């Protein structure tokens, strides 16, 4: 067995056998899932402290009657319509009277109602008020035109428009997609890349510092070349990361399978059961039949979302992810290894960490912006620059990226990571044997130019 594989094996096994690895591998997806599930629940439950809001309407009797009940109660807020109360008194006393705030509506300033409160009201509340008040005012204005059957006309014209996106490739094949789904996976891809590069990159750094401070490194480099030790560690930890990633993919595929077989088969059978009698009524009505079948709309939505998820270019996404993880990780991990070699303990890493962290953070920020406009020039350039491209490109891929761009980005990535590994190895070789001196950037530059 060659020496580098002995090193890789040790680095891999000592980490994979750790309890913390096993716990993290199982816990991380659960944690992620629970955040996605719990966060909305928590946000809703947080609203359950009943707020009473006094509504005072000024102006004529007719105006008042028109406005009463304009703003319906929500889960969190109750609107109490008060009559014959002076607004100036109320503003002074509403707190003592148990109200959260006072809403003042007057015909003179109809478009700018006033909301008095002790605390800055949440945006949900102000939006709720303005939306409902606007509807009521519009309705009132319409009513002034004395249109017959106004209510039923209004019901009839109520519409909701949703854009269904379909991709067309060169062969004319159509694929139904969803922008929301693409966004979710762009976000997940970019964020996961950021997390993995950071977590495993800093593991490399800690490993190097451990070897240096425990003074084990000099014994090892008398048997193997420093670059073999460095790459052995980097590759070993990369394999740990890939192992974890594979386990997550398997868990995810398993979970998707379970959901599909339970939830979706139910919708399908429900649709099938409702079909036969409608088919008699002719083809045209089949779609109507499906709609009228007793399939709950939530299930339909889930089923549709699943189709959209499945319609993403998964082989491309997964392969790019693995590619960008490996190269991006190698790039950053080698820099982290060089930093680890230059310091005597972890607290000294601060001064070197900042310049390394900044491109990663920029990458993450650009990736988040990318979701609004994946074709923008900022998204393009940052998906080409190797320091940010792993994160930004992963955010772009679900929206579709021209193959030439992908090729250029990957080629740049390969060239850069090789250059970075080479430079890092030079710093590392000198750094691991230096003790007790506080290292500066100038020093690192000097090490870079030392001969073998």
């Amino acid at each position, binding site marked *: 067995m060659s020496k580098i594989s002995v090193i890789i094996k040790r680095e891999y096994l*000592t980490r994979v056998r750790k309890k913390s690895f096993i716990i993290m591998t199982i816990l991380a997806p659960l944690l992620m899932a629970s955040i996605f599930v719990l966060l909305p629940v928590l946000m809703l439950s947080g609203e359950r402290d009943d707020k009473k809001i006094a509504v005072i309407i000024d102006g004529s009797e007719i105006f008042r009657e028109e406005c009463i009940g304009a703003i319906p109660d929500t889960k969190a807020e109750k609107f109490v319509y008060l009559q014959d109360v002076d607004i100036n008194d109320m503003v002074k006393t509403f707190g003592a009277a148990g109200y959260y705030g006072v809403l003042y509506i007057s015909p003179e300033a109809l478009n700018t109602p006033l909301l008095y409160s002790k605390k800055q009201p949440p945006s949900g509340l102000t939006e709720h008020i303005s939306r409902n008040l606007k509807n009521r005012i519009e309705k009132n204005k319409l009513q002034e035109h004395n249109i017959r059957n106004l209510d039923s006309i209004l019901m009839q014209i109520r519409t909701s428009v949703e854009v269904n996106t379909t991709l067309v490739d060169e062969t004319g094949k159509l694929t139904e997609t969803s922008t929301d789904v693409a966004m979710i996976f762009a976000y997940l891809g970019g964020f996961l890349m950021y997390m993995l590069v950071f977590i495993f990159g800093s593991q490399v750094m800690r490993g190097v510092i451990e070897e240096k401070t*425990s*003074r084990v490194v*000099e*014994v*090892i480099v008398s*048997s193997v070349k420093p670059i073999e030790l460095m790459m052995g560690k980097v590759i070993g930890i990369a394999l740990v990361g890939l192992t974890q990633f594979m386990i997550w993919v398997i868990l995810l595929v398993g979970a998707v399978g379970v959901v599909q077989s339970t939830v979706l088969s139910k919708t399908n059978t429900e649709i099938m059961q409702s079909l036969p009698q409608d088919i008699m009524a002719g083809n045209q009505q089949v779609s109507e039949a499906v709609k009228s079948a007793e399939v709950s709309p939530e299930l339909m939505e889930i089923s549709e979302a699943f189709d959209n998820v499945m319609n993403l270019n998964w082989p491309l996404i997964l392969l790019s992810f693995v590619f960008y993880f490996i190269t991006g990780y190698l790039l950053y991990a080698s820099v982290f290894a060089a930093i680890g070699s230059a310091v005597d303990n972890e607290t000294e890493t601060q001064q070197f960490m900042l310049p390394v962290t900044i491109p990663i953070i920029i990458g993450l920020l650009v990736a988040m912006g990318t979701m609004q406009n994946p074709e923008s020039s900022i998204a393009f350039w940052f998906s080409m620059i190797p320091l940010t491209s792993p994160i930004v490109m992963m955010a772009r891929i679900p929206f579709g990226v021209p193959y030439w761009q992908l090729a250029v980005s990957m080629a740049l990535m390969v060239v850069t990571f090789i250059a970075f590994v080479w430079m890092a190895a030079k710093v590392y070789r000198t750094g691991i*044997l230096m003790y007790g001196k506080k290292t500066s950037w100038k020093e690192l530059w000097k090490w870079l130019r030392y001969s073998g």
Partner: protein
Amino acid sequence: MSLFEARNITKQFGSLTALDKVSISVPEQCIYGLLGPNGAGKTTLIRIINQITGPDTGELFLNGKKLMPDDVHSIGYLPEERGLYKKMKVGEQALYFAQLKGLSKTEAMRRLKYWFRKLDIVDWWGKKVEELSKGMQQKVQFITTVLHEPKLIIFDEPFTGFDPVNANIIKNEILFLRERGATIIFSTHNMGSVEELCDNITLIDKAKTILEGSVNEIRRKWAANEYDFIFRGNVKIEENSLYKILSQKSENDKTAIRLSTKEEITSNDILNTVLNAGNLISFNPALPSMNEIFIRVVESRN
């Protein structure tokens, strides 16, 4: 024939010269002392021998052939700055180091069993390194250094951290390794152990070789004009034109005196003048300790 040779090794770190045309020649089955004050360049030379760093100029030979990367399998190195992975188990770790030196797992296992039994540490096999005392860790490190039966072994301060009993065990193991054919380079500040163990030495100071040769020869050379006398009783002698008194001490009804003379004066001349002083019970040419030689040589350069 020398087993290892370094010729005209020069190494620079930026503007700092760590080694300036240093040559050493280590005879086979010799214990070779590499001495020098802190920062003299010893560690750099040792690292060059181990091919951890390369020299700027100069050549290295092992067994008469140019030193090659694969020769690390024939060299064992116990660095001064040494350590083990704290969280790893002792046995696993020893196996790991053995494999890095090119041993197969089964062969490494067989040899480790022998050495663990020999140094009486079998019980530690499954323990984590952090549970061991420093001396215990040193024993494990000693084993990993010699396990692959290297022809050339480099020990940098091998006795630090050992109690006298264990230091003696390790000393005997080093002598045993030499008997079985190994050649040893031994770097230390402990001059007592140099006198005890080393056949030859090189003294490096400020990147240059300033003294080299066999220990006995060097001591004799530096002793040329000094003599030790021991008289019975409390004796006092006066300085004269023949000799200078370096020290004079009376203790337990005995007096020890050390004199230094000029080159042209023989021991007989001195004996003739000193004998009258009292009852002489011993007379020796004084051999300075390696410690004294070390200090004198290094200080004379400053």
